[in-house]
């Protein structure tokens, strides 16, 4: 604590004769209070209320059936087939989104780490998808997949991927790939930016030394680039996984969770339950379940990281 070490007290403050206690313990809260009050009132308080909702029956369409019901919502959740489908879909959606975002983002970062003509303009243009509002990305991709006005079904049919140009968003087997592609399009810039920053922090001498020693490009990549990027990759992938698992906008706009729940992930299930059915109790129950899953994931990852760092 600075207050106990008079050395760091600055001259201006002693002249102003303010008590050190006031200076160091109270003053920061003067700057912080609006932020704390808002976060407390708009996020933390509703969060606690939300957890309490999961033990109640709150359906706006049945106002007289409301009240505390203990774990009934959780019992329902356990036997809710839609919940388990959504869980599976969440894994599929998150895994493929993050895999493609990461691989393409890494490729882009490595390209941007070299020299070529028009690099500044190129960078601004390839990062543009990130600036596109998510609802608009979703609509744009939904339109691209629509055979009436979009070219993609026709191209896929011409390449033999589809038997005829139809909308994959209406096909339960393929529908999830629509939002995933939109998500990859939207998320590559983020990975590219973070990985580019990490790439630029690798000392250039290492590459020079590798070249002197006659290392092949592949060796340089696996022996220098990847090990240096590893910590950054780990933290970015972890944060991004949580973010993508929660990300409902794209799917909600593109497919609304359909057809036949084939694109329903947990977060869209929360939203549709709250928004369409106005069943707040059950929506909060799914939300608590999602929170628990994410927590378990984070704990496992942190534990793994600790283990790996030791070695």
């Amino acid at each position, binding site marked *: 604590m*600075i207050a106990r070490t008079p050395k760091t007290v*600055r*001259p*201006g403050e002693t002249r102003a004769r303010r008590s050190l206690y006031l200076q*160091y*313990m109270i*003053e*920061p*809260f003067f700057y912080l209070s*609006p*932020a*704390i009050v808002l976060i407390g*009132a*708009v*996020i933390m308080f509703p969060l606690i*209320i939300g957890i309490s909702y999961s033990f109640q029956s*709150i359906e706006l369409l049945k106002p007289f059936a409301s009240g505390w019901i203990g774990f009934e919502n959780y019992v329902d959740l356990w036997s809710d087939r839609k919940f388990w489908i959504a869980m599976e879909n969440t894994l599929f959606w998150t895994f493929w989104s993050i895999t493609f975002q990461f691989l393409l983002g890494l490729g*882009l970062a490595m*390209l941007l*780490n070299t020299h*070529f003509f028009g690099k500044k303009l190129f960078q*601004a*243009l*390839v*990062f*543009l998808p*990130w*600036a*596109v*509002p*998510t*609802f*608009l*990305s979703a*609509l*744009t991709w939904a*339109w691209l997949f629509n055979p009436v*006005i*979009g*070219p993609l079904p026709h191209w896929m049919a011409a390449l033999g991927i589809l038997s005829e140009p139809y909308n994959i968003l209406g096909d339960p087997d393929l529908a999830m790939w629509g939002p995933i592609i939109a998500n990859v*399009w939207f998320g*590559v*810039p983020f990975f590219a*930016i*973070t990985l*580019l*920053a990490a790439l630029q*922090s690798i000392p250039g001498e290492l*590459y020079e030394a590798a070249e002197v020693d006659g290392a092949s490009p592949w060796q*340089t990549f696996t022996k220098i680039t990847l090990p240096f990027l590893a910590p950054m990759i780990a933290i970015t992938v972890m944060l991004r996984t949580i973010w993508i698992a929660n990300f409902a906008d794209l799917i909600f*706009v593109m497919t609304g969770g359909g057809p036949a729940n084939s694109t329903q992930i947990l*977060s869209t299930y929360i*939203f549709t339950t*709250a*928004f369409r059915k106005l069943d*707040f109790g059950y*929506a909060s129950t799914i*939300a608590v379940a*999602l*929170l628990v899953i994410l927590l378990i994931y984070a704990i496992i990852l942190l534990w793994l990281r600790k283990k790996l760092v030791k070695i």
Partner: protein
Amino acid sequence: MSAVKKRHPTFVVGKYAALAFYLIFALFPLYWLLKIAITPDALIYSEGTRLFPSEVTLLNFTTVVFQTDFLAYFRNSLVVSLGAAFFTTLFAAGAGYAFSRFVFKGKRIIIALMLVTQMFPLLMIIAPIYKIVAELGLLNSLTSLIVVYTAFNIPFATFLMQSFFDGIPKDLEDAAMMDGCSRFQALRKVVFPLTLPGLGATLGFVFTAAWSELLFALMLISKNDAMTFPVGLLTFVSKFSVDWGQMMAAGVLALIPSCLFFIFIQRYLVQGLTSGAVKG
């Protein structure tokens, strides 16, 4: 920087092919949006998959602007996004300053709490927020959206502002205070001008985030005259799902403010994330 001087020709070709791939992948969807928006209605189906329309029109844009409610949606979105951006930046600057310049009791707990808000699904609180807003009688008001968006964006904006304040030497304020300025005067006269780029970047981030938020707006707004752009466009889509040209014209219009802000913050984007990355 690593001496890439004499590379094999196939390597060079491969590199430019990769560059082209990324460029097309990033821009094609946006190009298509624009293409349909400027295609005359009569040609939309007959030239559905042609890369260039044989005729071009701006009719869709004028229809959208003058004959639909989009101008009102646009205004609502602008009010909400600017309001949220202003208040978030103001409060986040205060909080970021406190984190950057003070060591105090409870600092770690507050930082941890802010990090937690970045982790858990915000959708979790959509039901409670709806009930609270409804009980306050603020459904269908832009104020409720501004308050909600401000709170959601404060944590990230705070960390961003903190990194900008960390980049300004503390000695500058100390010198000003030694010369008799109060801390507030030192802030206003010395720190504020130096933080302008940071403030601008934060404004831009929050503006774009608020501009594209859909789900909470969908929940809290149901009256047509209070709809923000995303909500308006989505109801437009479900109501008149045949008028492709107009929808895409509206989409192009929605893109403009975000792109303007993006061009503005692009520089700080890399800088901000880089400084964050270096610190770990």
